[in-house]
């Protein structure tokens, strides 16, 4: 029977008077079908929605296409001998209010669909002569079969308000002129794909910087991920060797460096590697160098330094994470390769590495993503520098640190938003490609 299916269409066509009524007065169906309290609550929500829309919502939506037109005015007041400011439109607030209104409307539409379906469902239950659950039973089910609703509502609201709404808001900024350039900080306008074209255009100043930063970001992420992974694995294997004495002690030495908060160690490293910092002093005292090594002012040296320091930060993590997994490698594999006369290097590349890659691909992808978004290491070590005159991005800036500089320091919000979107696109592509080609995705059977 087609009309037995619970959906909005059937509710509107085959629903009884009250079900149909709840298309306008939300909750009416529930009210008459025996769920009074729930019905009234839903109706109150609808009333609140209309109250919001009339007092603010429609206005917000109406302002959205123009993003405000009234400039802040300055009028000379003769009597008081001061400038008086007249309030103008603030496009940033208008955009935020507009985005929030859109979310409120989406929420009410969702509620409308749900309550309509539910009302039709109740109607059918009554027609079949079943008992309609009361309010008390509903509350009880929230702690039993529907426990997930109780547990997940608050976290989901948090994510919605502090992650999804801000993201949509930032994404919409990419299509505006919201920037310190040309003084569009208070009043700005929609700008279409202009900023995207600017970023992608290799001949322009911003575009040139973008491709430079992108190239270095990817080089950095590859080095940081794979060097850490392989060296950390080797360290774990060396410590776990049968003949290594004092395993716990060695492990402790390395773990100690992660136990200290990362931003502390990174700031210390930055100071130690300054031209008159401890490392240069030590090397000079030992007579190894005469001039200080320009760790942070020479682009190439700065890049190498950052990768090396990241090894210092990352190797203990990898060691900690892979130790358990390494011990799961079937011993037969090692014995077989020993019988075939393979040396340790060959065994590593033919057995250990493939096995680990197979098991830890998701972890590798996660750490690759983490490295592309690795703000702390770059920002605290080199601050993105050295920076050439006229550029906003330094030679060691990643897309994220550039994003930070563009938004927080330079207030080029629209460009920052474009960079953020580009980062997301790049990460999505990389994740999809590697994940689909990984053996753990293609073949979920065991290794071998």
């Amino acid at each position: 029977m087609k009309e037995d299916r619970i959906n909005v269409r059937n509710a509107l066509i085959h629903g009884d008077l009250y079900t149909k009524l709840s298309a306008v007065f939300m909750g009416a169906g529930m009210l008459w079908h025996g769920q009074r309290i729930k019905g009234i609550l839903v109706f109150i929500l609808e009333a609140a929605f209309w109250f919001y829309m009339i007092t603010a919502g429609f206005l917000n939506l109406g302002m959205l296409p123009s993003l405000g037109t009234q400039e802040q005015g300055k009028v000379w007041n003769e009597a008081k001998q001061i400038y008086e400011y007249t309030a103008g439109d603030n496009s940033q607030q208008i955009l935020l209010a507009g985005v929030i209104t859109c979310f409120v409307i989406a929420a009410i539409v969702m509620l409308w669909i749900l309550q309509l379906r539910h009302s039709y469902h109740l109607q059918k239950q009554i027609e079949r002569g079943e008992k309609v659950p009361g309010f008390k039973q509903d509350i009880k089910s929230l702690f039993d079969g529907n426990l997930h609703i109780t547990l997940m509502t608050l976290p989901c609201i948090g994510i919605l308000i502090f992650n999804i709404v801000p993201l949509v808001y930032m994404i919409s900024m990419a299509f505006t002129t919201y920037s310190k350039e040309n003084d569009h900080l208070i009043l700005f306008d929609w700008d279409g794909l202009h900023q995207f074209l600017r970023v992608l255009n290799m001949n322009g100043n911003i575009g040139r910087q973008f491709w430079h930063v992108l190239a270095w970001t990817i080089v950095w992420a590859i080095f940081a991920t794979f060097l850490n992974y392989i060296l950390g694995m080797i360290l774990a294997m060396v410590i776990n060797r049968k003949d290594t004495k004092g395993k716990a002690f060695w492990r402790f030495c390395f773990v100690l460096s992660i136990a200290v908060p990362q931003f502390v160690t990174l700031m210390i490293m930055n100071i130690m590697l300054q031209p008159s910092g401890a490392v240069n002093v030590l090397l000079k005292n030992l007579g190894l160098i005469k001039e200080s090594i320009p760790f942070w002012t020479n682009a190439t040296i700065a890049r190498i330094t950052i990768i090396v320091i990241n090894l210092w930060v990352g190797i203990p993590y990898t060691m900690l994470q892979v130790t358990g997994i390494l011990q799961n490698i079937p011993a037969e594999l090692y014995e077989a390769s020993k019988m075939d006369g393979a040396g340790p290097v060959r065994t590593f590349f033919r057995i250990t590495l493939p096995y680990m890659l197979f098991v830890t691909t998701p972890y590798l992808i996660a750490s690759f993503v983490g490295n592309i978004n690795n703000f702390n290491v770059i920002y605290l070590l080199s601050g993105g520098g050295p920076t050439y005159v006229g550029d906003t991005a330094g030679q060691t800036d990643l897309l994220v640190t550039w994003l930070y500089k563009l938004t927080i320091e330079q207030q080029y919000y629209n460009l920052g938003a474009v960079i953020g979107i580009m980062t997301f696109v790049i990460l999505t592509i990389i994740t999809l490609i590697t994940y689909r080609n990984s053996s753990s995705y293609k073949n979920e059977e065991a290794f071998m």
Partner: protein
Amino acid sequence: MENQLKKNRQSPRKRIVNLLVHILLAVLALIWVLPIVWIVLTSFRAEPGAYTNTFLPAGYTLNNYVKLLTDRNVLNFPKMFMNTFIIAICSCAVSTFFVLSVSYSLSRMRFKFRKPYMNLAMILGLFPGFMTMIAQYFILKAMGLTEGASIRIGLIVVYCACTGLGFQISKGFFDTISKSIDEAAIIDGATQWQVFTRITMPLSKPIIIYTVMTSFIAPWVDFIFAKVLCRANSDQFTVAIGLWNMLQKEYIYQWYTCFAAGAVLISIPIAILFLYMQRFYVEGMSGAVKG
């Protein structure tokens, strides 16, 4: 005796390899421990300033710690410490509840929204974290949480709000707990809520400790969002911003050794917490990989 015999039986080549391995490990361990030793030594250094002509301090003193804990005029470290402590306690309580609820629901309950939620979490994870930062600031401003003492509430809200996305490790843990206990309890008439609070939670001590500790540590080490939200409100500073400020141009000469002292003071508890929970971290990791 037996060990002695075994050693003698090793071939000379193997012995050399072993020796080399241990020397290598010693060198590496030195590289890893040296910066930490250096900062501890610096915190006791008598002469001020960030840069000196010697690698090791010339004289030692406790004054850096005394100044850090008593000088309340320029950079009020005790106040920052209390700020961070309050924020850490509150956000730890809320985010532990969030993480455990979400990961329990995803691991044990089956509902329509489950797969979409997990996919959504993955997609949201691909956006750079700072993209949302500015917008979060504007939203907090609209809520009136960016001035004076309410900055603290703002920070707590921000540290907790999105923790529901970080469910992977604890979900991996819950997945490894056998479901047959739950099923038996439900046959005996227990509700899902009772299963969650009376059965699963007592079995999940390691992951609860892990979650509590990670969320307690987060406010101590975050300086970016705290910096954006506090701006110039120096009485709301957290420890991380304070330490960061000590290294800025205007303070570094006077405050560098105090920075070292502060770094040592907050690193000790965090290091102890971390060393204690690394076991759970490793277990959670291998659980997550298996699942």
